């Protein structure tokens, strides 16, 4: 008889062993990956949230900067998917909320006490920042975030295709619609404004001579000019000349570089990839004006670093943000120009960034300065979502634009009352 059969593995022992394993498994799960470093380095443990950038090398770069910091163990959560905002908002309510996170300046984060006042760390270098960025992060004289990058967004086009179709760069929305029709062939669509058209919604407002909010935070987007622009966009949407349902969305240059469209709305970050694919056959132009009272516009998007005011390590997090996004100028320039192209919000870094001084990037900087509109801290995610609905209903669906704008204004007004009383 084998030794194995002499063992006492009766049902009871098996049950005990299984229960022991289950308990051990449970305990292991309790100590599982919370996203925080388990130690091994010096100082506090910090967690930072980043949305997944499309440019190759960005995740590695952020992790490299974090590793170089000696004051704390910084763990990076690289959030993939298209709903970074929702994931961030939900995480901020939990004990596993990030200590440091990137986002856009929005007043509800300040009103709900979610983000820490960073005035003291920015004050010594405040004058070196783009003053529009400082303004967009300031509430009641306090600065709540450090801008990392400015991201101008405009139209990219193929000059060779324009020459072939014998068309000029459009300066009005009507012209854009006409040009798109002439550029369309059996292989290529005229223009691409994103799969759901929402990336250009603010530009439609600005180019129609309106604004999202007034200076005293009242709705300013519900105008006849904007309604007219929505009607014109509907014409473009149904023309068959617009690229719809592309496999990659507007922020990725693939639709443009793969020859699916002659014009694409995108950001300056995509320039290196476009230049690599198309060489010199790229031009840029701002969102054309809408109606006679309008003016061309460029979105000056971007990302900023915030410190979770309800986190356990607020001071350590502020120290880290100061170290990386204020003191480490070489990392800031690397982040802004080594992967995609972005404009550094620090004037001194922007001036020394040689990659932005010539060619297409320099043109991008010019449009940024001439036509750019910066973040409005009072224009919150809920308000953005309300205008998303206007785009969906009046352009993609065919509801009355004015009625949609009226409904949107009511929602925005309710939001504003909650925020400002």
């Amino acid at each position, binding site marked *: 008889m084998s030794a194995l059969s002499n063992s006492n593995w009766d049902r009871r022992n098996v049950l005990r062993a299984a229960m022991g394993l*289950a308990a051990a498994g449970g305990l292991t799960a309790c100590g599982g990956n919370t996203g925080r470093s388990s130690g091994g380095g010096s100082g506090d443990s910090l967690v930072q949230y980043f949305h997944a950038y499309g440019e190759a090398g960005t995740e590695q770069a952020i992790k490299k900067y974090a590793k170089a910091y000696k004051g704390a163990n910084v763990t990076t959560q690289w959030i993939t998917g*298209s709903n970074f*905002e*929702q994931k961030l*908002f*939900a995480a901020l*309510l939990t004990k596993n909320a990030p200590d440091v996170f990137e986002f856009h300046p929005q007043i*509800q984060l300040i009103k*709900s006490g*979610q983000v820490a006042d960073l005035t003291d760390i920015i004050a010594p270098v405040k004058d070196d920042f783009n003053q529009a960025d400082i303004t967009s992060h300031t509430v009641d004289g306090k600065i709540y975030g450090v801008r990392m990058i400015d991201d101008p967004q405009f139209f990219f086009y193929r000059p060779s295709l324009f020459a072939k179709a014998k068309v000029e760069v459009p300066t009005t929305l009507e012209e854009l619609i006409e040009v798109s029709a002439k550029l369309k062939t059996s*292989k290529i669509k005229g223009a691409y404004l994103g*799969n*759901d058209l*929402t990336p250009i919604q603010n530009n439609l407002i600005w180019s129609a001579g309106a604004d999202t909010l007034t200076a005293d935070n009242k709705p300013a987007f519900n105008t006849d000019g904007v309604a007219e622009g929505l009607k014109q966009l509907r014409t473009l*949407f149904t023309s*068959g000349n617009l*690229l*719809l*349902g*592309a*496999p990659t969305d507007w922020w990725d240059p693939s*639709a443009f570089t793969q020859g*699916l469209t002659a014009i694409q709305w995108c950001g300056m970050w995509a320039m290196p990839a476009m230049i690599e694919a198309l060489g010199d056959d790229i031009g840029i132009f701002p969102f054309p004006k809408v109606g006679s009272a309008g003016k061309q516009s460029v979105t000056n998007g971007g990302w900023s670093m915030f410190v979770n005011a309800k986190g356990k390590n607020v001071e350590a997090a502020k120290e880290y943000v100061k170290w990386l996004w204020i003191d480490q100028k070489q990392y800031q320039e690397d982040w802004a120009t080594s992967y995609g192209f972005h404009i550094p919000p620090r004037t001194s870094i922007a001036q020394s960034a040689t990659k932005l001084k010539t060619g297409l990037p320099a043109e991008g900087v010019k449009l940024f300065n001439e036509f750019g509109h910066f973040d409005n801290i009072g224009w*919150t*995610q*809920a308000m*953005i*979502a309300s205008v*998303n*609905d206007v*785009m*969906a*209903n009046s352009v*993609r*669906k*065919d509801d009355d634009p004015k009625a949609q704008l009226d409904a949107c204004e009511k929602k925005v007004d309710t939001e504003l009352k*909650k925020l400002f009383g």
Partner: protein
Amino acid sequence: MSTTTTRGVAQPAPAKVSKDRPRRGLRASSTFNFWLFTGPFLIGLIVFVFVPIGWSIYLSFFEARFTVTPSDFVGFENYKQVLTDVDFLNSLVTFTVFAAFIVPATWALSLGLALLVNRLRFMRAFFRSVFFLPTAVSYVAASLIWKMSIFNGVRFGLANTVIGWFGVDNIAWLASPDPPWYWLVIVTVRLWLQSGFYMILFIAALQNIPRELYEAASIDGAKPGWQTFRYITLPQLRATSTAVILLLLVAAYQAFDEFFNLLSKATWGQPPLVELYKMALGENQNYGAGSAGAVVLTMLICVVTLLQGKIMGFGRGEEGK
């Protein structure tokens, strides 16, 4: 001669009762064993189901924007908001349209597949696996494949390539609600994902139908095919069909992943869970209204399920037929 004789067959030995160590106390009691096995699951149920439900009901009576520990009691205000919210009411219409198609379509397809696979004389296991395999695919992954590879709007999407062979121009399947091509995308992805699972249930039920019934019918002159299917197979599958329809209906109520991933930033084709997600976990972060909507939806599911069970006789068993 009896056919049930047990002569020559070894009988099981009677259970050995130990006289030395009589079991006593808690360890011997069936109550202990009950708690031993159900306790961990009960704890999980309480922590992960009942507490969140209770907390959700609590939140539904408070103004809870950007917080889950609110202090501003608003009574039924959130319920009033949800029940007058056009988007939420539209989501119930979306669900009704979706359920009205997906439930019978999945039932018919899975039953059809089961009948086909069950009649196979060779490679039955292979085809059973082929049809069952999509069940293992995540809804998110499948939705992205459908959206980016099969039903994208460009010339090299699979669907557009196929219709292109017949001279039809590219269609942007998901971009516009007019015409509502998005339903084709949503329905096909769900049919592909879930039919295999229900096919397995039907195969099991088909194999439980006594052969004698078919033999008796044959002797009585019933023709094989539609006649036996209608008068023998279908009635014999009644219990399974009822359970399948119930499961399909609940699954339709729970629809989220494919709608969320296929119709981003659309205002149409939003089922209740997507609408509640937007309300509570989207840009508005309104946990009070979202919780009120969840309570309303839960009650609605309970009512519909009970009604459906009553109409179709779920749980009545054989004697109830």
